[in-house]
């Protein structure tokens, strides 16, 4: 493979990993718990900015990256795994604060609307407050993790990064899988399916919703950090509200509430359909490829919602009663046990 091809391959693989982590987070919020988070992308953006600020170093003269051409309100330089951790925490903390205001008050279309507007406000402020995060130009020259320490060649380092993304990806998948197959995961599904019934069973619906929202936000933050650690630049143009829609399409196409479905959704939506549009013939209109991508995503969403609303790989219906009976040792009456 030529260098350019290698770079394209590694870039696609990193995107795949980043998108899987993000989509797992959105699925936990939207697919499993039923929160219409139309602001999802701002939590990814927050993680990306957090990673940038904790690696770029303090702004001002004397800073290799910050001097002269970019301004930001604060910065430091932390060693390798910490910026990723901070990014996840920032994503979760921002989710908690936004969620605490919106989630208890709004449902359904209005919730989606409020999140959408929050997303627009965030983009507007980040674009217009130049001193905050360098405005519309965004932050660039963000250091790559362990780049100097490893001393690899350019393409070897890219493959190392693919591995790093894969490791994060597996950890996140495992974590989300554990949550979803635990009693907690079942409780979250009850919030989605029937809030009243869930309340009647004594579930703390409010905290459950906040928990899913915060974990999803943390995953979004981490995905943002992994993305900016590889591409080294981040600007408001990278996280317009339509980007949230890409993940929502991935979750709908793959199968909401199903982790395997999410991975298939990410493979199909941003990777296969997204990249395939790049190879469409050029009709001479500037921005036609990006426009074409969004049209494809919109059509996919409508087609799936109509013909296959549960996605390519739907959430499995688990029969808890039978599973419990199987697990219970023979001869022990299950009558006295409490229902799950």
């Amino acid at each position: 493979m030529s260098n350019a091809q290698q770079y394209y391959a590694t870039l696609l693989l990193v995107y795949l990993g980043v998108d899987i982590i993000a989509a797992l987070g959105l699925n936990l919020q939207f697919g499993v718990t039923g929160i219409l988070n139309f602001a999802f992308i701002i939590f990814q953006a927050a993680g990306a900015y957090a990673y940038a600020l904790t690696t770029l170093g303090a702004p001002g003269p004397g800073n290799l990256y910050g001097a002269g051409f970019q301004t930001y309100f604060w910065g430091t330089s932390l060693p390798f795994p910490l910026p990723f951790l901070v990014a996840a925490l920032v994503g979760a903390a921002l989710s908690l604060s936004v969620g605490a205001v919106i989630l208890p008050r709004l449902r359904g279309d209005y919730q989606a609307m409020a999140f959408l507007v929050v997303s627009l406000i965030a983009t507007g402020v980040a674009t217009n407050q130049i001193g905050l995060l360098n405005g519309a130009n965004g932050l660039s020259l963000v250091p790559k993790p362990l780049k100097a320490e490893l001393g690899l060649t350019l393409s070897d380092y890219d493959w190392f990064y693919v591995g790093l993304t894969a490791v994060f990806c597996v950890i996140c998948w495992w974590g989300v899988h554990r949550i979803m197959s635990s009693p907690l995961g079942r409780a979250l599904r009850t919030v989605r399916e029937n809030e009243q019934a869930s309340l009647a069973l004594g579930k703390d619906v409010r905290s459950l919703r906040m928990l899913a929202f915060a974990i999803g936000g943390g995953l979004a933050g981490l995905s943002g950090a992994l993305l900016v650690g590889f591409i080294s630049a981040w600007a408001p143009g990278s996280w317009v509200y339509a980007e949230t829609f890409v993940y929502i399409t991935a979750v709908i196409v793959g199968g909401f509430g199903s982790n395997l479905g999410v991975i298939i959704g990410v493979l199909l939506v941003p990777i296969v359909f997204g990249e395939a549009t790049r190879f469409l013939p050029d009709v001479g209109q500037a921005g036609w490829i990006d426009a074409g991508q969004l049209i494809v995503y919109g059509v996919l969403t409508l087609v799936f919602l109509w013909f296959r609303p549960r996605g390519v790989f739907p959430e499995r219906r688990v029969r808890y009663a039978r599973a419990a009976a199987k697990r219970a040792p023979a001869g022990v009456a299950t009558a006295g046990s409490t229902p799950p």
Partner: protein
Amino acid sequence: MSLLALFIGFGLVTSAVLAIASVGFTLQYAVTNVLNLAYGEVMTVGALTAYVINKRGGSIWIGLVAGALSAAIVSLLLNRFIFGPFARRGLKLFGMVIVTIAVSLIMSNGLLIIAGASTFSYNFDAGPTFTGLGMILTTEQVVVIVIAIVAMIAVRLLLTRTKLGRAMRATSTDESLARACGIPIRRVTDAAWLISGALCGIAGVVLGMSVTGWGVFTGQGLLITIVAAAVVGGIGQPYGAMLGALLLGIVTSLVAGYFDPAYRDISAFVILVLFLLFRPKGILADVVAQREVVA
């Protein structure tokens, strides 16, 4: 003081555009319960239709009528083929909002491919400039305000004096009761989409008349401000939307004038979020509760 009057004058022009658009938005929501996020694109369709006619040498007034017609037809088709079927099937877990935002993305990017990213402006005689009460308004701006007032009176007459208007109000208050009374819901719904589409198209054309240049995303950019006006006035209430439009037009204009033009839209977004969170029934909630009138 003179600066204040000047900004209020500009605000009134924005209010006029917003009033036409948000009354259409809220009327359609009242009857159909669909929060239509593709409304901004329908507006652009109207504006572009008028542009094509205007470029071919037609007068802007013919353009205005054609824009209203084309937007009304697009609006009706959207309901017939997309929103209506989805709404009848019932989207339990997702809500119509995902359908409408998908349509919005398809339409806006489709329009981008067809019309391109260039800036358009209408060709018509700029008449004399009016000054008064400290405001300075061009002829087209005054015309925009007059069109808005005429449209508002027309909506008022439609709702209070016609059989269709009464049927729409009945459907909005209680759909199943209205059905039981023999009101043809399907036809009333179609009429609501047509009328809201026509208002949307008019709004698109007058928006194009009131600004120096507009593009395929201008309608979408105004959408949230339109929704904000509708929500501030209490969503589903045409007279509330008129009031909301008046307030939002002036507030955003003052923010743009005194603070920073970049924050014009953001101030509308913030108002929308605050109202959704703390006063979701709008400023007229108490009045409406007292009179129990849902127009």
